């Protein structure tokens, strides 16, 4: 998988850096190329990086609760930029407050994300899903 690139980052005005660091580490351990934009990443920065590095997937994190505002229109924006084949995953504490996950998932899928992860998800699961979606063997 050394030639498969994943762009990762934490969207919006969000500065939660710990999960990002672990996702970076875990993807590299799983032999992916990682482009880590760090925290406080705008939609444009995600898209620009994905284009530039010919990424296969974008892992968006949002922890601080304002992800609903920050992620709006992300799918369309990616499409407009021609990123039709890039997988869009999002995870973290996506909305404000403790809430049922199903409606949250629906909301973010409607924004164009292919996979949506609930709070505190094990990143290993995201990586498994990625391999499956990309048709990469274990």
């Amino acid at each position: 998988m050394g030639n498969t690139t994943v762009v990762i980052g934490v969207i919006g005005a969000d500065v939660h850096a710990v999960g990002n660091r672990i996702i970076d580490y875990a993807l590299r351990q799983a032999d992916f190329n990682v482009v880590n934009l760090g925290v406080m990443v705008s939609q444009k920065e995600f898209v620009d990086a994905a284009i530039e590095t010919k990424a296969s997937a974008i892992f968006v994190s949002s922890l601080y609760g304002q992800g609903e505002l920050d992620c709006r229109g992300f799918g369309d924006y990616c499409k407009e930029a021609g990123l039709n084949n890039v997988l869009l995953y999002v995870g973290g504490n996506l909305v404000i407050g403790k809430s049922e996950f199903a409606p949250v998932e629906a909301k973010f899928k409607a924004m164009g994300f292919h996979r949506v992860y609930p709070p505190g998800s094990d990143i290993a699961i995201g990586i498994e899903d990625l391999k499956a979606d990309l048709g990469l063997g274990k």
Partner: protein
Amino acid sequence: MINKKMPLNEFMALREEVLKQWVTGKEVDLSEAIAYQKAIKESKRFSFKLNQAVNDKVTLIQPRAGVALPHEHKKLLKVLQDEGGADLLPTTIDSYTRHNRYLEAQTGIDESIRTGKSLLNGFPAVNHGVGVCRDIVEYLDVPLQVRHGTPDARLLAEITLAGGFTSFEGGGISYNIPYGKNNSLEKTITDWQYVDRLVGYYEEQGITINREPFGPLTGTLVPPCISHSVAILESLLAAQQGCKCITVGYGQCGNQIQDIAAIRTLELLTKDYLNRFGYGDVRITTVFHQWMGGFPQDEAKAYAVIAWGAATAVLSGATKVIVKSPHEAFGVPTAEANANGLKTTKQLTAMLKDQVAFENPLIKEEMSIIEEETRCIMEAVLNLGNYDFGLSALRGFEAGLIDVPFAPAQCNANKALPARDNSGAVRFLDFGNLPFNDKLKDFHRKKLKERADTERRDVSFQMVIDDIYAVSKGHLVGRPR
């Protein structure tokens, strides 16, 4: 950055600029604000309540809380006061305001009105302005503090202090390193000198505003000596601008011995450094933050973590404790969940307040370790900055002499790495450029070797990852399983 109290005329000139940053700035009239603050009664002043707590030897409890809309925010704080029994109240500011993105904050407010739920993770005080702040302060019976994470909080301070808040959290270091990415440390320190000067100005007029450097930093395995060094530097910077009432903070690491030793040394060392530079008249109190790292999702387990934090806070003798809620792992808590965290905490602050503090050779030992580490850092940093506090901080971070684990800020070296020892105390696995002497380094190495031996594995980054997850998975030390 300057290395003296900012001259009044310069300060006043700067204020003109600051107040223009957003339309609500023009609501601030400093002399009217002083008069307003003077009329606030003692029991609603932070400084008074903190003094009282010190005299009565009790630990006060305070939540975090903030929502987008004023009437909702009032309702929320009222629940925390009446149901939760909060001794002190917060107003947590939303993340757009923290980044001075007032336009986005406005969108958040509008959307929150439209959808009928708060889409902001806090209260956008700047957008709401002075009048709304006063309305909130007047509605409640206990003192209010602004809690945020704002690198440039000048306008926020102007508005909220004129708005009747009697305490203001943050600092040029502690609200930069964990809370931003590209902010120049020089700029944030300068901007916070403005905030401290504003507080100093109020003080000159007879109004004491409590200042609180943000102790826990990234909340993730931060060894006491790191947060202590930041707290001391920010206290010196604040004192220099005329602040007289400072609360230094620390985020629970989880090993009780280390936590008690940390609160004790934090107070002793801060006082010592303030004295040394001629600020012996500043009153120092302490705040203990319940576990600031990843929480267990299960609420019963979250209660355990909260209660353990409460107990340690009291036994450490902290002046106040900042409380988590059983919703922590998921999201901003409901008023009820937040009140529940308070009630759990109050039960223990009350039950334990009569218990004699632990005296214990292990605590003494840990205290001398923390003291030595902190002095190593502080002396190296002050030396490098020629005893100019701002410059010392700047150069200290540049050189990695202070290094906050897991910080997002680019001005942080990010070389030092923490991990727990065999009894759960947080030590260094990698010193980066921390100016520790060999004795200290040996101590840390020995401690981590002990753990590695127990776990039959090498000291490595995997330990750090395991430790990051440990509490949320029901342990303190992240052992291989």
